[in-house]
């Protein structure tokens, strides 16, 4: 009984892994079966999975997790420059540094709870963002962003006789270039690993304590448990997930800029988690996928596309419709996101996972109990 996984958990993990690996085929019908978008799903899925361990389990709402995403990206690019273009050291160091930064910021922020905690994390993240643009320019290369150069030392690559010649190198895993499908599959395997770790945490005594932190800290203290290290451990783990996600962003596109640390990016991971269903195992991945998918669609629309879409209308009406619609697409995509978010929070406070569970309950209720037991217990 060392690997004490229940059958339904094993089934859920296998289904999850299969769905991720078959992503290019499964998502092709909705036009998302190409690697650039798929790897975004995987990377932000990891980011949200980690965020959920903090927010979903302990209830501590951080508004600064993009800082760890940024730290991960900078670390990965520096690892490429100094050590090797192999993605493994890059993501290991990105995870580690994400965790270290989280330990420092978490240690200070967790002296407060509730809104004060949120504000502290937000302040720290904005501080990091501003520092990256100003005094830390030697490390971050300021507004231009940190990039690779042909003249980078890459001591490990040199030591192993790997020479990229006169071109700008791209990340590769022992000769497999991290672009296109290999890039996606690298991120996909990481997502599966992260999902597995998250599942173990959810089912563990540690995970139970984290849910107890959310439920009643007072009782927890009078029960002989010290809340602070539990919350801090959750914070550090979520920082490591964020660091890994940031590292993977740099693996698929070796460039790191400070905008990755901006508060809008911190807010996005909150939306992903809540949209999918915070505190559920699968929800955050689904939320991340949904937001990145709609972002991709809505931000691609421009005026030309809209004019064409409404070409069947009389000219005056066409102008009006184009004007209204243009508020919600392209640069205005965040307006759509906001509206979508409001609808979900009002009608489905448990997120998309609650929606799925309701549909499942409705189906099993209508067509007899047989179908329900086959599906893995998805929510929690």
């Amino acid at each position, binding site marked *: *009984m060392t690997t*004490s996984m229940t059958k339904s958990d094993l089934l859920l993990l296998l289904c999850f892994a299969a769905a991720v690996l078959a992503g290019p085929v499964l998502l092709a019908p909705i036009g998302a079966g190409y690697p650039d978008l798929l790897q975004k799903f995987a990377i932000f899925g990891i980011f949200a999975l980690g965020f959920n361990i903090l927010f979903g389990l302990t209830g501590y709402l951080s508004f600064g997790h993009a800082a760890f995403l940024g730290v991960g990206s900078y670390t990965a690019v520096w690892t490429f420059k100094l050590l090797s273009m192999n993605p493994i050291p890059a993501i290991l160091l990105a995870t580690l540094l994400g965790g270290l930064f989280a330990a420092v910021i978490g240690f200070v922020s967790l002296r407060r709870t509730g809104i004060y905690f949120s504000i502290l994390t937000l302040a720290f993240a904005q501080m990091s963002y501003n520092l990256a643009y100003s005094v830390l320019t030697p490390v971050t290369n300021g507004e231009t962003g940190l990039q690779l150069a042909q003249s980078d030392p890459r001591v490990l690559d040199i030591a192993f006789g790997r020479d990229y010649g006169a071109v700008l190198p791209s990340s590769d895993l022992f000769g497999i270039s991290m672009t296109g499908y290999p890039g996606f599959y690298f991120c996909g395997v990481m997502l599966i690993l992260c999902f597995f770790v998250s599942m173990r945490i959810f089912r563990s*005594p540690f*995970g139970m304590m984290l849910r*107890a932190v959310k439920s009643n800290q007072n009782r927890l203290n009078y029960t002989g448990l010290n809340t602070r290290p539990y919350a801090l451990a959750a914070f550090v783990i979520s920082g490591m997930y964020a660091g890994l996600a940031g590292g993977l962003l740099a693996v698929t596109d070796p460039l790191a800029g400070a905008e990755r640390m901006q508060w809008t990016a911190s807010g996005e991971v909150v939306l992903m988690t809540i949209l999918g269903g915070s505190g559920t195992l699968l929800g955050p991945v689904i939320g991340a996928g949904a937001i990145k998918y709609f972002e991709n669609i809505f931000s691609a629309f421009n005026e030309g596309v809209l004019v064409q879409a409404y070409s069947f209308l009389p000219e005056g009406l066409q102008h009006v419709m184009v004007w209204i619609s243009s508020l919600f697409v392209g640069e205005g995509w965040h307006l759509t996101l906001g509206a979508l978010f409001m609808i979900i929070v009002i009608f489905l406070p448990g997120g998309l996972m609650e929606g799925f569970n309701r549909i499942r309950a409705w189906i099993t209720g209508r067509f007899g109990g047989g179908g329900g037991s086959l599906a893995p217990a998805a929510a929690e």
Partner: protein
Amino acid sequence: MSILSVQNVHKRFGGLRALNEVNLEVEAGTVHAIIGPNGAGKSTLLNCFVGRLEPDTGTVTFDGKSLLGLKPHEINQAGVSRVFQTPEIFGDLSLLENVMIPAFATRDGAFKMNAWRAVDSENSLHDKAMGMLADVGLAEKAGEIASHLSRGDKRRLELAMCLVQDPKLLLLDEPTAGMARADTNNTIDLMKRIAKRGITMVVIEHDMHVVFSLADRISVLAQGTVIAEDLPDGIKGNPKVQEAYLGGAHL
């Protein structure tokens, strides 16, 4: 031998003397009741035992060790469990989880990074928690969410959470306050059974019926001062107590 020793404890809130030179000795294995009118300082005194409040002066010694300056979780780890005036439970968690958490706390200490094993594989703690739930009559509800329980059931759950820790000292602040009659009787029965096991208890209680059927010794607190301390029969006949607490009415 006294397991809890309180000496010369004073506590002020601004101009209010909530506790005034309080002395108390609780013998191991006995039930010690603290009674007194509303606002006498009973809860304040209890809060000084568990680290929620710090006395201005005086000492609180438990099991030969000072409790002053310790955090609530450290005091619990030393062997003191507490039931609150309004039941404090983990409302979002199942009854079983509610009882397993304190069991883990007692076995693993204030913090342990136990993140890889499944809770389901902890068979001995699971059995212990289930046994405890059965003891308080909640076994068949083990899988339910705790916030849905009635107030009486919440109290019994909270008692199970404390008892699963095998505490050396159990503190109860008005365990039957605000309860329906049936729930009160259930809770009293439960407390009597706990007392029979030899667990030391300090009980704050309003209901005289409860106090006299349960307590080995009684301290009477009025306006922050202990005005009497005796066996139940002695307290019944004490004119000072009747004057201060019972308004002269006969018991």
